[in-house]
């Protein structure tokens, strides 16, 4: 038995693949119209649960194998694409960081799937929800277990899209779709950082693989730039300042999705990325100090905002952000083991607390303790906390405002000049009053029309001007010549000469 466990880590690719397969299967069933009604619901839920449970059991087996066979380390499953020394591999890094977090995530994922199957019974978006949830479970495992940056990026994006789709689960409500877009766009900033760093890694290090990347000896300046991109991605995903507002607007989805995404699992992905980069971070005390500062500021911010929240989901989300920012502080101080342990414990507790959010009324009996006396009477700070330091409004004003303005100008440019220059279908006007059938709009259209007029003129001039036109005469002349040539060729001697000439050419 123990011997058989030796190779179980080779199957780790199933952990992200199975939920994805479940998502694909459900998606196909929905497309084929095979997922309607209670029976369709049951099958979807069972399928997703089975995938989640299998992933969990597999991870538990791998964990067990660790006891006897040690950490599996980097496992290369296959090469996705390769060009010269550039290799995009499907590889997994199974170590003391990824395995515990992934196992816990798989457990929470399985429990949330079970929870959702009952909770969302007969909800109109049931199938949609499960497709997205399964996609998330696959994506987050790819993030956690990935052995290289590329796979992590893939999972990272899947989580981002899943999050977007679930915030907009109640798409009939404009608030939900607006907030989904807000969260999505904010997270794109982080994705840009991630992509930037991966590009640099490919360029400077020549590999996406974590072991190569983490052991790379780069000049400190380069390293700093490389890590900063990753750090931006981590800060955005873990909703640290200045990105925090998106997570408070992400609570529109069904309660279990809020629980697994923002309460317990996805919000920790950023912290996880930083923990993954730990060896690099330790070369850069200034970056660590920066993380420490951001973590501290976020902690103060989240604590302050948490004081005034009046709905249970918002109250819990600020509590979550607060503790996540403490993990960042721990990383900043170099206490990565503490941060990892805190991450796991926090994820476990918050999933319980978030799933029980609807029963807050029964779980608590008193008002929470008031804030310290020096704070209580401060109207300005209160207002700032209530308006969440205006961060989301600022984001909209500073980013969305100018973007909209640019878009508006570009649109005006397009409508006034480009569209006119290119021309639009159905807008054509006749350019020659004598030929009302030839209509054109825009530069290419006019050119074509002009060309067609020209050709028509040629046609008219040369061919159609009845008998005795120039063209007819020339053609008759050419016909006579050809007939003479043919008569000559038909004679045997000329025929033989032609054959011999052919042979000469061939030889």
């Amino acid at each position: 038995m123990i011997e058989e466990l030796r190779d179980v880590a080779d199957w780790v690719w199933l952990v992200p693949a199975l939920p994805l397969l479940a998502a694909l299967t459900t998606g196909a069933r929905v497309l084929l119209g095979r997922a309607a009604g209670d029976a369709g619901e049951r099958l979807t839920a069972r399928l997703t649960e089975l995938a989640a449970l299998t992933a969990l059991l597999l991870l538990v087996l791998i964990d067990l194998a660790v006891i006897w066979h040690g950490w599996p380390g980097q496992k290369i499953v296959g090469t996705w694409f390769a060009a010269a020394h550039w290799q995009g591999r499907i590889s997994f890094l199974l170590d003391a960081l990824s395995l515990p977090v992934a196992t816990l995530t798989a457990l929470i994922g399985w429990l949330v799937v079970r929870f959702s199957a009952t909770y969302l019974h007969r909800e109109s978006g049931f199938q949609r929800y499960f497709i997205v949830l399964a996609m998330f479970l696959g994506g987050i495992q790819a993030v956690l277990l990935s052995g290289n940056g590329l796979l992590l990026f893939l999972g990272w994006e899947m989580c981002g899209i899943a999050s977007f789709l679930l915030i907009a689960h109640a798409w009939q409500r404009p608030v939900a779709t607006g907030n989904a877009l807000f969260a999505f766009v904010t997270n794109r900033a982080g994705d840009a950082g991630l992509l930037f760093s991966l590009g640099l890694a490919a360029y400077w290090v020549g590999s996406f693989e974590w072991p190569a990347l983490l052991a790379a000896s780069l000049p400190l300046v380069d390293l700093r730039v490389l890590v900063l991109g990753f750090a931006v991605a981590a800060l955005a995903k873990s909703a640290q300042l200045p990105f925090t507002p998106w997570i408070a607007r992400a609570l529109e989805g069904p309660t279990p999705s809020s629980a697994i995404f923002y309460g317990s699992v996805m919000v920790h992905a950023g912290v996880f990325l930083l923990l993954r980069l730990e060896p690099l971070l330790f070369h850069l005390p200034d970056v660590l100090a920066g993380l420490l500062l951001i973590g501290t500021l976020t902690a103060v911010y989240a604590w302050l905002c948490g004081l005034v929240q009046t709905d249970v989901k918002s109250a819990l989300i600020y509590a979550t952000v607060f503790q996540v920012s403490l993990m960042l502080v721990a990383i900043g101080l170099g206490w990565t083991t503490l941060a990892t342990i805190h991450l796991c414990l926090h994820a476990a507790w918050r999933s319980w607390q978030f799933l029980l959010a609807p029963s807050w009324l029964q779980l608590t009996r008193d008002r929470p303790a008031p804030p310290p006396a020096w704070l209580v009477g401060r109207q300005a700070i209160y207002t700032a906390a209530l308006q969440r330091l205006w961060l989301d409004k600022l984001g909209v004003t500073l980013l969305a405002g100018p973007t909209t303005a640019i878009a508006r100008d570009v649109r005006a440019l397009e409508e006034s000049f480009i569209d006119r220059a290119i021309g639009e279908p159905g807008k054509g006007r006749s350019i020659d009053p004598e030929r009302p059938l030839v209509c054109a709009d825009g530069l290419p259209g006019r050119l074509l029309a002009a060309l067609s007029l020209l050709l028509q003129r040629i046609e008219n001039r040369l061919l159609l001007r009845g008998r005795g036109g120039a063209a007819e005469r020339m053609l008759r002349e050419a016909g006579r010549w050809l007939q003479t040539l043919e008569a000559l060729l038909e004679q045997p001697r000329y025929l033989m000469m032609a054959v011999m000439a052919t042979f000469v050419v061939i030889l």
Partner: protein
Amino acid sequence: MEPSIEQRLHHWIEHLAHVLPAQAPIRDFVHHNTLHGFQHLPFADALAAAQALTGAQVYWPAQRFGAEYAAGRIDRDDLSAALDDQGVDGLDDEVVGGLSRRQILLAELLTDVPGGAVPALAVCRRLLGDAAPVDEAWPELARRRWDALHAGIGRQYSLRALLLRLSGEDVLESVRSILQRHLAAHLDLGMAAWSNPAGGRGFFAAWKASAALDLSWELDELPGIRDEIQHLPDEPLPLLVDELRALLPDESLWPGYLERLALELPGWSGMFLWRDQHPAGGAGHPVSMADYLAVRVFLERQLCGELIRRLTGAPLGLEELHAYYHACPAEFLVREAWHLAVLPEDLLATASALCEQTLDGREVRGWEALAPRVAVFLQADESTRWAAGLQKLAGQLALDEARLNELGRDAVNRLLDAARLSPLQRGQIWLAAYEGHYRESLFVALAANVGRQAAPAAPSAQVVMCMDDREEGTRRHLEELAPDIETFGAAGFFGVPMYWQGVDDPAPQALCPVVVTPDRLVSEQVAAGSESLLARHAQRREIRLQWRERLYQGSRRAPLAGPLLTAAAALPGLLALTASSLAPAWASLAGKRWRTQFDGRVPTVVDPGVGDGNMPGFSDDEQVERVAAFLRTIGLSASFAPLVLILGHGSGSRNNPHLSAYDCGACSGRHGGPNARVLAAMANRPAVRAGLAARGIVIPDTCHFLAAEHHTGDDSIEWYDLEQVPAALQSPCDTLLKQLAEACRRHAVERCRRLASAPSRPSPWQARRHVAGRVADLAQARPELGHATNAAAFIGRRTMSRGLFLDRRVFLISYDPGSDRDGDIVERILLAAGPVGAGIALEYYFSTVDNERFGCGSKVTHNLTGLFGVMEGADSDLRTGLPWQMVEIHEPMRLLVVVEQAPAVLSAILARQPALQELVGNAWIQLAAQDPATGSLSRYCPRRGWLPWSGRAVLPQVARSHDWFAGESGPLPPALLLGGVA
């Protein structure tokens, strides 16, 4: 003398109570008529008024009724009878081509049922020709429509609604975002740790203090407002008057406008008003509706003003806006067509580009060119609708094209006139037909059951349950199981309105219908000799609860203890989650057991005579009075069985903010067990028995009253004071315990048939296990289905309904007409149970027909807010009414109350009771009578008086309930049960 503005405002605010949801904070959810403010109107008029005011659906959509028709739950005769009920004129006169108005109307209604061949639309359009509105020049069309719109401001629309129509931009979104945080903070009952420092001075002051410091205004490009807010008056009233005057110069429109504004965020407005009117239900901060309205009107004017500025380029007042679009009919017409979405795609794109560009603040041209092209579609829209109507109608009447042509234009127009039904009339007729169909099946059942039943001569036990429709099933199964048991039903507070304080309760709670304010208090006492146990219990319980509080609140917001608590609780939390996911029933039971073990058990007793320092208990005379009145009401004043069980009920579920919506409605949404226990304790006291005997109710010494509580969620029974059962009755008592437990298990089987995740055809034990797991499941949004099946109420002896399968759809209220010649008792019952039953039925009705407006939508996105309500997500209106999961299978119809009493007696009661006159006369409930002597049935029609019923009393017969419902998952018609008859 003209009343001052204060008085008038006070009056307007009082009026708002009629139109806003009157839901209390969610902890005390009690069913009530959603349209309680319209109850003075006849049902159909009230619904029309409510729709005009709120835009809500007030009937099921016609397609839904059409589907019921297709499923055989409504038939043609029902529709025909419904037309008679509505009092449509000249129903049987010929209109055209041998068709009577009745036939035409029936055909028109049945156009909602899918299927059937139809003539070509073009033919219909050609035939109608003149019927379509005349073509008019587009500027006239535009001005006519604009004038009509503008005149509706303050009556039908607020300025914001008008601007939404013109610009496509909803000011309300901003208003809600701005207001919602302040409102929730001010009303908060204990979620936030920190509330506005100025909150103690009222909402207006708090908002002003905070808004003046709020930088959002700058970011929203409304920079001037902050200064303006700083210099606002300190009192809301002057501000309100100023702003209203600036908005609407015409004062007569103010009350209507305030009503409109309040109704734009009905949930928040309703909660604010409730707290205004119930100061005791708050948490310190004073709540005044005038504050809220002042802020709301201020925001309306500011934000609408800003939008008008962007829309027209100038800060226009209402009259100026009117003049503006009068002068630019082209622009208005394009905007109108854009809003109504009647345009083909290319025009729509052009129109929306124009409309959106104005908001960007750019000079826009092209309205004039677009307007005439758009006008065509606005006009065509109307005529197409007419032609489509004719097309469907002709299809139903089997009039083919040839026949239509033959009839000619005039006849076709007459046909259409005869068929004209407003959507409201249509809904009303369908509803009447739907109700009629079910009523017919109940009448058949009642008629078939006449004379089949007699009360058991020497019952082994008598069980008094709540009138609740859910207990119909329990009673039926108990009687089937033990034919010698007699059952009764009564409002679940059992005639004992009181404050109750259990040993574990932090404060007394009122257990009685919500309209009654009790003046007696009963507190649970520790049994003699166990005082030290109680002290230990209280102490340990307090420790446990403090730790729980520390854990949940601390891990949420304590900066230092939070991470530590989180770390400590993570593993138990994860284990608990896993356990309750895999074995919810076991996890819940184990948790309960451990809690009890930790706290320690305390034996308790109840003495109805002992109150507390502030409020007395019931004196001996009062106890006699209460018990006698109660027993007389239910018709149990002689031939007592050895055991009389008073069975209250309550529900329980995990993770469910709407918890109390499943509890006993007669106990203000709480558990009715304590009332049962107090009544039993009263009836067992020798002093009370002596008093009763003096009043002619002789309870033999061999008779003992028991009390228990039925958990309608998991069908378990909690028994009280079993140690007081006399030794002689121990064995019958054991038998009763067993019988009731088995009846509950069988009842669980019946409940399982409506639950999709329950095993199909379960055994009683399986069913019981399923419901136990269901109630304990954290993920379960439907712990039970509540009153989802309620449809009728019977007031009479059990012989009237015993042996009938009624599918848990009927409130059963015991009443003996024999001892109530002049109807005094039934009058009291109707007064008490009528509003409770009507409240439940009507709340379910409205939450079903428009779950978006009257209900609170799906539970899955609910977010508990301020401990007083739920929002969808983190920024929405407060949602009131019932969640979709509770009404999913509900069949919306008005409660049918069948009273076993002579119609003449009931007429007299109606005549002298205005409250009942309102309910019955305005048709909020349907009333019927079954004559106690002959068993003949008649129903009351507000328009035509009592209508005797005649029909064939033939009903399917089965041996037991189980034979009728096994394998069925939909609603079932009544059946006669052959077994279980004593």
